[in-house]
């Protein structure tokens, strides 16, 4: 390799105690050399030095066909990450580093801010624990700010209920498990921690309106929480509504309007209609016929359900397996009409999937990924046709989040 001006100036640089100044000097040197070379260079390819931006940015708001892949990074949980993929082109657009035992990002409805509940230790996996909600600029992916919250964030297999924004985007809710259970409330307007709401025996946060959400309790009852302008809470616990016995519902429900659709281990759908201060269970229905259940068909996976609210469609990852396989991925996605509970479509996936998600637009994309893999598959959600695959997306991808 020929020796050129740059390395020379580099060698000069190895005088001690001149680091800051020297860095500056080196930059100048580089630019100077670029200029010196620009003459002959102009005739051919121009120098990149000093030309144009050195860091890429993203349009705001995001395309409805972008998806954030959240990564728990099981073998190295201190280094959680999230990856942004364009479902239309398959292009990888950007990365966020999100700390220990990461669950998932939350996207503001105006598309300008990304909220990320994160946990850090002063010495990686030991030392002082600090939990924060980091605010990222959606256009630059730079840190906009940080809100310190109680160091109680639940560390669990990530589910969307780990954190939520109220429908008006005013309050950010974070589920705590120490193992004492509570919900941390953050005010996105003042960007301050507001309070911790005790939710004894009840888990996760499921929004129900501009200022309300509920948690689900171990006995199947529901804790309805209503927040005022200052984030003060009125809580009310219902009678047991959801099955928690032989065939309990999973903690992976999906929402359409005021209805949250829970699914049981054996594949029965329980629609829970929730308002600020009341909750009622709708008619339950099965994802499978008796014959299909006999054949072992059941839902599975981590992010096992997805909904297309416009078309009132429910998508579920299905596989054949015994009871203890309720977390297993599947190679099938079955699609249901929410009004009739009838299966209207069956999509054979390219490979096993543990998480699926839909884009929220009128021409929806279906995303599928396997936590034991890292290839993101993009399907036309209506035709079920595989559009493209994006390789090498993360280490143990968990939840898919779309604008």
């Amino acid at each position, binding site marked *: 390799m020929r020796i050129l001006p740059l390395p020379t100036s580099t060698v000069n640089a190895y005088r001690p105690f001149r680091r800051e100044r020297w860095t500056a000097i080196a930059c100048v040197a580089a630019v100077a050399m670029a200029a010196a070379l620009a003459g002959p260079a102009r005739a051919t390819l121009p120098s990149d030095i000093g030309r144009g931006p050195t860091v890429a940015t993203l349009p705001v708001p995001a395309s409805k066909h972008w998806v954030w892949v959240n990564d*728990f990074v*099981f*073998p*190295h*949980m*201190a280094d959680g990450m999230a990856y942004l993929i364009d479902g239309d082109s398959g292009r990888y657009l950007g990365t966020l580093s999100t700390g*220990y*035992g990461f669950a998932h990002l939350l996207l503001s409805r105006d598309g300008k801010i990304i909220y990320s509940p994160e*946990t850090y*230790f002063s010495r*990686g*996996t*030991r030392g002082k*624990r600090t939990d924060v909600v980091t605010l990222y600029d959606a256009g630059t992916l730079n840190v906009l700010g940080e809100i310190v919250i109680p*160091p109680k964030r*639940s*560390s*669990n*297999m990530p*589910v969307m209920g780990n954190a939520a924004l109220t429908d008006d985007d005013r309050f950010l809710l974070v589920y705590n*498990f*120490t*193992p*004492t*259970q509570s919900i941390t409330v953050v005010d996105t307007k003042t960007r301050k921690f507001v309070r911790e709401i005790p939710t004894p025996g*009840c*888990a*996760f946060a499921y929004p129900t309106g501009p200022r309300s959400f509920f948690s*689900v*309790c*171990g006995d*199947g009852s529901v804790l309805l929480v209503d927040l005022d302008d200052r984030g003060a809470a009125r809580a009310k616990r219902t009678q047991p509504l*959801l099955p*928690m016995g032989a065939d*309990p*519902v*999973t*903690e992976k429900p999906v929402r359409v309007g005021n209805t949250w659709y829970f699914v049981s281990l054996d594949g029965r759908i329980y629609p829970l209609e929730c308002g600020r201060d009341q909750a009622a269970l709708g008619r339950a229905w099965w994802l499978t016929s008796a014959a299909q*259940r*006999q*054949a*072992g068909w059941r839902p*599975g996976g*981590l992010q096992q359900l997805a909904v297309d609210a416009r078309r009132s469609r429910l998508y579920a990852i299905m596989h*054949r*397996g*015994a*009871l*203890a*396989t*309720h*977390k*297993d*991925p599947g190679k099938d996605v079955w699609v249901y009409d929410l009004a009739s509970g009838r299966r209207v479509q069956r999509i054979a996936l390219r490979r*096993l999937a*543990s998480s699926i998600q839909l884009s929220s637009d009128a021409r929806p994309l279906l995303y599928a990924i396997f*936590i*034991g893999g890292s290839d993101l598959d993009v399907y036309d959600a209506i035709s079920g046709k595989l559009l493209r695959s994006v390789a090498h997306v993360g*280490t*143990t991808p968990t939840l898919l989040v779309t604008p």
Partner: protein
Amino acid sequence: MKWLDAFAENSARALARRSSRRSVLGGLGSLLLGAAAVPLLPVARGAEVKRAGAASNPHWNDPSSCDYWRHCAIDGYICSCCGGSQSMCPPGTDMSPVTWIGTCHNPGDGKDYVVSYNDCCGKSSCGRCFCNRNEGDSPMFQPGHSNDYNWCSGNSKANIPYHCSTARIVGVVG
């Protein structure tokens, strides 16, 4: 875990590292269970089949094997592969005081035992001998019966970082 050995030819190492502390094997495990599912059906027969399987399994008494009888409801890296044992944490880690439990059948004496799967905490993931068996696992709405929580949570000396899981006998079921 048998399927791990089989899978090993491709990327067991990657798998071992990629394997989740908490039921990622709900994912990976299916590579085995997906196949095993058919003979196990109808679902109702699953239980007996499993128990028979356990008794006849050559590794039923090997603490470093996923098939070890105490591991019927474990979910994580087996501490016996990480410098600890079925009842001890590896050096420099901290045992979580509370956790989830299972009831496992010991083919050796034909008795059922209550097994407590205390997590060992304070270092990064051990990454060896991942084992996930979801028998009796409930959704996280019932923490005491769920293997999807990191039970290092609330451990004052090592709050959260999960390293591996033990399988300690709490007592015999009368």
